[in-house]
Every structure is written in C-alpha cells, then in structure tokens.
C-alpha cells in the first residue's frame, strides 16, 4: 500500500512538474493543481496511512493524526484562492500582452530566449 501511495505521489508530481515547465500559462495552472494534489497527499501521509480511524474522539480507538489534516485543509482552501488569483493574472497578462506565453513574448516554445 505504502509503495503504491508513493508511486501515485511521484507520478502526480512528475506530471505536474512537466506541465510547470511548459511555456503557456494554462498548462502551468493545471500543473500547479496537480502538484498541489501531490503535496497535499504527501502531507496527509506524514501522519501515517490509517483506515477507518477518522480523527474524531470516540469514533475510533486509534484516531489518525489530526495535525497534518488540519494543515492540509487550510492548504486546499488557500491553494484554491491562489490558483484563482493565478488564473485571473494569466487572463490579465493575456489581455495586456496579447499572448499567453509566460515570458510575455509570442515565440517558439523551444527557443531559449
């Protein structure tokens, strides 16, 4: 189970990072979303992988670690606010610059400058 969990996190991060390295704003937003899924899963897993043991007193004998969960809960909401901010920034950048390339220049994606 642990290996599978790590594998999923690895694949999610790799796909996210690949998208982060693209030159267009939309891909980067999608990439960041993937990466934050991976990060959130990672953070939750720092408390261990538990089954049927929600961190509610009385619901189970050995409740899961609530601290990473509290961290991730706010991270999800903040992550939404930040990606919303980025989306709107990207829209604004496109409106100002006329294209959606991260460098603000419409050029070959593979070119170094």
């Amino acid at each position, binding site marked *: 189970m642990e290996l*599978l969990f790590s594998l999923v996190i*690895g*694949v999610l991060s790799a796909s996210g990072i*690949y998208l982060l390295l693209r030159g267009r704003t939309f891909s980067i937003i999608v990439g960041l979303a993937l990466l934050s899924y991976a990060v*959130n899963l990672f953070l939750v897993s720092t408390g261990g992988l538990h089954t049927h043991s929600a961190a*509610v*007193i009385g619901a189970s004998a050995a409740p899961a670690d609530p601290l990473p969960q509290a961290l991730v809960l706010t991270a999800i909401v903040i992550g939404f*606010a930040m990606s919303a901010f980025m989306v709107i920034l990207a829209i604004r950048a496109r409106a100002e610059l006329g294209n959606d390339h991260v*460098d603000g220049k419409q050029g070959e994606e593979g070119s170094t400058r």
Partner: protein
Amino acid sequence: MPLLWIPLLTLVGTLVPLLTASRGRLFCTAATAIVPITALALLLSHLPILLDGGTVSQQLSWIPLLGLDLALRVDGLTLLFGLLILGIGSLIIIYAGYYLSSSENDGRFFSYMMLFMTAMLGIVMADNLLLLWLFWELTSVASFLLIGFWGHRSDARRGARMALTVTGAGGLALLAGILLIGHEVGSFALPDVLAAGDQLRQASTYPVIMALVLLGAFTKSAQFPFHFWLPHAMAAPTPVSAYLHSSTMVKAGIFLLARLHPALGDTSLWSISLTLAGLATLVYGAWFALLERDLKGILAFSTVSHLGLVVLLLGLNTPLAIVAALFHILNHALFKATLFMSAGIIDHETGTRDIRRLGALWSLMPITGTLTLMAGAAMAGLPPFNGFLSKEMLLTKALATDLFGGLGSVIPLLVLVGATLSVAYSLRLVYCVFFSPNDNPPEAAHTPHDPPKGMYLPGLMLACLCLLVGLFPMTLAAPLIRTASIAVQGDNAPLFVFALWHGINLPLLMSLFAILGGITLLWRHKNISSLASLLPAPNAPALFEKAVTRLIKASLWITLRLENGSLQRYQALLLLSALGMTALGLSQLETLSGNVAMQPIDGLTLLGASVMMIGAIGSALAHRWRLVSLLMLSMVGLTVSLTFIRFSAPDLAMTQLSVEVASMILLILALFFLPQRPPRWVSSRRIVRDVLLAGSLGLVIAGLNYALLTREVLSISDYFLSNSVPGGGGTNVVNVILVDFRGFDTLGEITVLTLAGLATYKLLNRLRLFKPSGNIEGIRWSRHRYPMILEVVAQIILPLALLVSVYIFLRGHNQPGGGFIAGLITAIALLLQYIARGYEWTSSRLPLSYPVISVIGLVIAVLTGLGSWLFGYPFLTSSFGYFNIPLVGKTELATALLFDLGVYLAVVGATLMILVNLGSVTTAHRPTLKTTEQTASKEGNK
C-alpha cells in the same frame, strides 16, 4: 560608571551635530566637541585601576546563541587608543569647524565623524571578538562615508570605493579567522581567547587562522601590498585624513595585532610574517614619500612607512620591541595628526598642495611654520622630539634581533635605509613649503597668512606634546605605555626607561648617519627623481581597477548565463537545484525502505491509484488540448478526495470535493478567456530535458514519501487528541485545531483568502477582452445561453444546499465539517444560480456585496479573538459551555463556533468574489474602479 556609557555617548553624539547644525557653525562644533571630551573624562575616571595594571569590564548578554555578547573592557591598551581616539578626535573636530567652508554640510560631516569615533571606540573596547568585528566593519563603512564626503568629485568616490573594497574584504577574512578561533577555543569572549594562547598556537588550523587575521590587520593598516588604498583615501577632507588615516583607523590593524598577541603571537611564523611585511612597508612607503609631490601624498606614504615600522617592531617580538611599538603608535599619532592639520591649513591658505608651487611661506605663516617644523622634526626622528626616542629604540631592537640568523643584519640595514629616507622626506616637506624660493606660486585670492586660532591651536597643542614627550618621556608617556604593555604582554611586560641620551652607541651613530644621509638625499633630490623615473613604477590602483572591472565582467557573464529573461529557464534551474539538494538528502539514508511493514493493497484502492496516475499523465500529455487536459485533471482531483476518505480524513475529502467543483468552474471560465489551442511546440530536446527533470523529481519525491511511510511516525498530536474535548469542547480534532488550538493561523489564512478575492477587482479592472465568437473549428457558440433543466434544478437545489451547509457548519465542531466546508458548499450553491440564470438575473435577486461579507467574516473572527481579552485571557482563547435550549435540547455553545462563523463568511465572500467577478467580465457589470452600485447606476445612462 558603567563602560557602556562611553560608546553610547559617542553614538548619541552622532545626533548632536544634526540637531545643532542649524544654529551656526560655532555652536555646532562646540556642541559636538563636548561629546568626545565628556567621553574622555569618563574613560579617565578608570585611570587609577588601569595604572595598577588592572582591567575594567562589563558584560551584557546580547545574542548568547551566537556567542555574541555586548562585552566591553578597558585595559591599558584600550586606554592608549582611547586617548588617541577621543583626545585627537576632539581636537580634530574643533579644527574641522574652521576647515570646512561655510557652505558645507557640517552636520552631516560631524555626524559621520562621531559614527566613526563610536566604531573605533567599539574596536578598542570590545571584550568579544564578534563584537570587535562588528565595529571593525563599521569603521570601514564610516571611513567610506567620510572619504566620499565630497561625493561630487570622482577621485573622492573612487578613493572611497577602493578603501571600502580593500578594508571590507580584509574584514571578511578577519571574520573567517575569528570564527575559526571561536571554533578552536569554544568561545568568542576575549578573556577566554587570550587565555587559550597555547591551545591556539598548537592547533592544526593555526597557520590559517593567523593568515586570515593578518589579512584583516594588514589591509586595515595599509601594509604592503595592500597599502595602495591609503594614498587614494587622501581625497577625503583633510580633517578626515588627519583623524582616520594617520592616528586612528589605520592603527586598528596594529591594535588587533597587539590585542591578539597573547593568543596568536610568539611563534616564529607570526614574527617572520610581521617582520617581512613591516620591513617591506617601511622602505616602500618611505621611498614613495620622497618622490611624492602632493603634500598629503607625502604624508600618506609616510604613514604607510611608519605603520610598517610599528608592525616590524611587533614582529621583532621581544618585550622591549613591543614597548617601542606601543610608544611609536602614540608618537606617530601626535606628529602625523599635526602635520595633516598643517597641510590642511596650507591648502586652505594657498589653494594648492603641490609642493613645487609652494615655498617661502615661513615669513607669511610663522605659527603654521613652527608647528610644522616641530612635527616634521619629530617625524624625521630628530632630538629632542618624541620620534627620536622611538626610532632609537627601533634601531637598538633591530640590531639585537636574531630573527633571520645569518641574514639578521639585513634588518638593521633596511631600517637604516628607512630612517634615512624618513629624514629626507620630512626635511623636504618642511623645506619646500616654508623655505625654498617659490617660482610658480598659485594665484590665490589673498596673501597667505596664519589661520584663526581655532584652526592652528589643535595642531600647536599636539606639536608641543611632541616636544614635551621627547623631553619628559618618563613622566608623560612611560606610565601610559607601561599599562598598555602589561595589557599586551601580561607578566612578561618589561621595566624600561625612555631617555634621550644613552651615551655614544651604535644606534646613535646610525641616527647621525640617517640625518646626514637624509640631508644629502634632499640636496641631490633631482638625481633621485630622475633615478626613480627609470625604475618601473608599480601602478597598484590601475591593477586594482582592472581586477575590479574583470570581476564585474565575470559576474555579469554569469548573471547573463543564468538570467536570460526566460521564466521557463529559471523554473528549470530552480527545480534542478531542488532536485540536487533533495537527492543529496535522500542519498544519506542508509536504506530507502524503513522497518515498518507495508499494508496490503485492496482492489478498490488500486483502481483509484490507477485512475489518478492515468489522469495525471493524461493531463500532462494532452496539455495542448486544454479541455481534455482539464477533464483529466478533474478526474485526479475527485479521486484525491476519495483517497482522503480512504485514509481517514473525512474533513479533507469534503473540502477537496467542494474546492474541486469551484476550481473546475474557475478553470473552464479561464479557458474561455485564454487561447483555445496553443501553437505547436518545436524542440524535442526541450521535451526530453523536461521529461527527464520531471521524472527524476517525481522519483525523488516518491522515494522520500516511501522512506517516510515505512518508518515509525513520530507525532506531536497526542496533545491535540487528549486536549480536544476538555480544552476545546469538540470531538472533531481537525476542526478544533483549526478554530481553537491554531486559530491564529486560520485567521491568517482567511485574511489571505479575502485578499486574493479583493485582488481580483484590481486585476479585472478595465480588462481588454479577447472574446472568441466560436470555437477553434469556427463553429459559433450556441445561442441558448441558459438551459432550462439546469435553471429548474439549480433553483430546487439552492434551499437544500443551504440547509446542508448549515448542518455541516453546526456539526463541524464534533463531526467532520466546519466553517471552511460549509462556506464552500454555500458558495457553490449560489454559484450554481449564476451559472444557470446568468449574472444579471441572479445579482438582481441576490443583492449581496461579497467583499463586505468577506470582511464581516474577518471582523467576526478578529472580534471573537479579542473577546477573550475582556476576560483576561490571551488572544483567541476559546470558551464553551452546555446550555439547555428549548426545542433543541442540551446544546454545546462555544466561542469557537463564532470564530468558525467568521471563517464561513470569509470563505463564502472570497470564493464568490473571485468567481462572480470573473464571470461578470463579459457582461456590462465588469469591475471598474468604481464600486458595483455606481457601475449599475452608470449602466442606466448608457
């Protein structure tokens, strides 16, 4: 009186000139001069203890973790330097009051001077090496400000830069040396370091420590080959040269050598390094002083030479040689400050410092002439002035040394050369300015004459001291030098006698030879100059400039390599370094897999994992087909929320699910505004690089996670689990953490959320729109804007969704739920109305101002926190109780619920602010600088 008052007084003194500058030059000068005089009196109040060889110290803890304490000491060495710093300092301030022209900003000048004085006092009073270093660097900074005081002149700027670079670089070397000392000794406190001399000398790092410390000292004290900054620092106003570059700052390096002598001195490596540097500097400086034509240039090179002399004496390393070094520090400060002051007077009166254009001033300026003559004689080492005494001691010690074995006679010979040159340049200075006929006088506005009393009295006082110390050395200097010597040498401090007459001996004959040789050199000066023009003149400043230019070019090259304007490239570089560092950390694990056994995999989980992986890879592969990519992403997101349920995190699952809905709406909206199909990519090399980078990072992250998961979990959460019910009154620990234990964090988070929402107003304000009228294949958008089924369903769902959100909100403290989740559900329910009916229809029926809701939420949260102050508890302490409410029954009410209400409102407000704003961009209600209400009324006019 605590010692701290002394540097504190001068530090406060930096404000005095600034505050008094508007009340006239005289007042400002007097007010400023009072500060060092008072500080001097404070210092002298410790005199009785010091003369007995005692030490006064004061310890204040500052940053104990770094070993940095505000520890001050006053001992004999401090006293000697303190007298120079404060005594000559106050005289120079009086002198400067007359020197500066009336249009100059004297407040700023004096303020810098006081800053420098504070730094210098800090160096000599520091009882902690780190503290000493801080002040050491402060002198470099203050010196930079002072040399560059006439910042409109390019030579001043260049001189200031050069001085700062050289002394600053030396300061860094010194810091490294000090850190190594601290590492070796285990403390930065000076008493500990001084007591650990034997340990340091035997340490394997001793040569490195010594080299670094010497680098610091030699750059500061202008020892060859780092001397070149000092002549260029002469671009400073003359009082600065007189103070910093003759009597105080350049002596800081020598002070350091004397201070650390018990800890680092007394090895042959130390002696040889100091002797060689000192000898080279002594002769080199004297030779160039003889060739120099600028009055201040002569003095600068002679200072270099005399600093070399002191370093040489410290290097000879016999008890009496160190006494002689300390004595010469005093003597040199006295006569050199005088000479600089008179150079300033001459410059002031005649308008030039070029000695070829000066001459025959004796009859015009008799007082200036007298004091220059006296100080010049002291510099030449003529009896009965103080310079003669210390020079005789140097000659005696140089003859007695056995440092270089068979080559030992080289030292007295070179010293003799230095002494001869010293006589020559001193006489040349006095002769050329005051006695030689002047063929080419500068065109001065008036005939030169003696300056006002305030300008020559300070110099005259020092010149008289030169004579008096020479005549009565045992009364005036010996006690001071004796205590300083005790501070440096401890029990080895010798008894000594300063006397003008030791009978006819070899040193006296050498002195006589030096005087005659000096006169001959002056007589044949033309021949010397032509000889010098044949020798290659080392152009250190040019080399320095070249080195600096090369350095700048190199760093520019590196910068341009790294920073070519492509964000993609920065991203790749950042990720690459992250990869390197994480991989390094991971490689230090013995085994990747820990000792905790793995749990078995069940089919459903495997299915979920596969969906997530396929979705992630799919969305990366399909990133040019943006809608497909987005659908793949949402597939991953929904499965992530299922994963949270699977692994016992129901709160997270609910949050993730509702956020997922909101972000999908957001991203689909974004798709509308962004290009539908990006242009084709090109370089396959780039793709290979990115795949490799992403793949290896993914591997490292997975490895890290696996290593973590297969090891024992060490959690700090037991506290939260056991205190959740008794302390927070809730059984849902996650929610109790959010609204109670870590409520302050949550407050921060909802503030960020609100800010992000408010920022959308600014970003969407007056947006130029690219509004496609159809899709990429040219098919026009459908005209049916609002599907009827959705309209109906949305309307039915709204009350149900609101009910659910209230339920989720209320139970949040004890069951999975809470303000965040309830807020998101409410926001989505309302959003559905906008989607189903359009902006105008909905906003006319929902006259809500989302920024206001969001801010009200924040206010509620803050007020709840502040409420606990009313009852005398810290911010955000929660309270709860159980009440019997009619109809509902026994209910728990907690202040945390109120806080959660704030969270709820902030989330609702911020989410809707973002999405509704973005959605309204295509309508007539797009955000402008005015508020929504005004826009609505304005729209009526259109």
